């Protein structure tokens, strides 16, 4: 199998380049991450990439494969056009090879206060929800923060420092939708901004790439509806 992989080592002083690899590999049933590990094991031990759980749970191996942001560990090799071109996630700074600097991404995530804000005295056991109230959170809590959606969003490319991006907005809505949270108004206040929220033009790149099948555009739409309801 033929691969073209983005290589960059800032310590070497050399410019980023694309390196070709020819790997003798049976692709049947294998994922992109298996090929990356095989290349590192047999061809080039200097190739750097992140991976941890290797089964689509931890979200650390987001890469751009043939132009699409994917999790390498759950993307089948079969059916990919060769040479398979693997690049780091777009728009984030490259630390080395396929490893990107997620600082900006996490900063936006922290900015939406991704935790329950409830000023009531702590209950003895738990804060109960009805099954319907709990169902509101489905499609929101599953996000693994891999960054595939945010780095596929042109609005994030143009305003990465100001637009929160689909992942952070999905998480923002996850706590707005939570009946146990009492800071809905403050959360909406924070989001009501031409940059933070309204850079989203609803082109749905995020929905297309999300490896967990989530729909950040729908969550963003619900935030906008809540803002409208609040304003009227």
């Amino acid at each position, binding site marked *: 199998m033929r691969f073209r992989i983005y290589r960059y080592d800032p310590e070497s002083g050399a410019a980023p380049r694309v390196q070709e690899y020819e790997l003798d590999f049976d692709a049947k049933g294998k994922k992109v991450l298996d090929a990356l590990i095989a290349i590192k094991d047999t061809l080039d031990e200097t190739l750097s990439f992140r991976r941890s759980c290797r089964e689509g749970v931890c979200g650390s191996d987001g890469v751009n494969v043939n132009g699409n942001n994917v999790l390498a560990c759950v993307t089948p090799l079969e059916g990919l056009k060769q040479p398979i071109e693997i690049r780091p996630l777009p728009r984030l700074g490259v630390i080395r090879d396929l490893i990107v600097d997620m600082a900006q991404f996490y900063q936006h995530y922290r900015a939406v206060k991704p935790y329950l804000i409830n000023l009531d005295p702590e209950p003895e056991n738990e804060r109960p929800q009805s099954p319907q109230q709990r169902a509101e959170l489905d499609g929101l809590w599953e996000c693994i923060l891999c960054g595939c959606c945010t780095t596929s969003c042109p*609005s994030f490319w143009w*305003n990465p420092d*100001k637009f929160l991006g689909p992942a952070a907005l999905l998480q923002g809505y996850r706590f707005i939708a939570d009946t146990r949270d009492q800071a809905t108004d403050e959360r909406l206040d924070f989001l*009501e*901004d*031409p940059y*933070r929220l309204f850079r989203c033009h609803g082109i749905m790149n995020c929905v297309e790439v999300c490896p967990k099948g989530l729909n950040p555009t729908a969550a963003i739409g619900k935030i906008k509806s809540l803002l409208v309801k609040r304003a009227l």
Partner: protein
Amino acid sequence: MRRVGGSHRGLDMWLMQRASAVYMALFLPFFLVCALAAGPLDYAAWHGLFASPAMKVATFLFVAAMLAHAWIGLREIFIDYLHCARCTLLRLALYFAFAVLYLGCLVWTVDILWNVR
């Protein structure tokens, strides 16, 4: 200066964009039907089409919606793509220039429509 945000703006623009789109989507088919019903597209039919005050007002609202829609769309494009060091001033100047241009178009529309007697 630290980056600031949360200006509590954007919702009004976003709503206006939707509202103007809905009006245009409703008006255009309505206008098409009226134009076809008015008979052959000669000067007399076209003139008669715009003779009633209702059609004047509806067309005026359509042009107003279109210009508002266009202005907000341009604003989005400027915010998306113009962010150099001095671009705040450039954006402000562009917003203002297009607002003046489009308001002029609106006044001109009034002049055209209400000259049809």
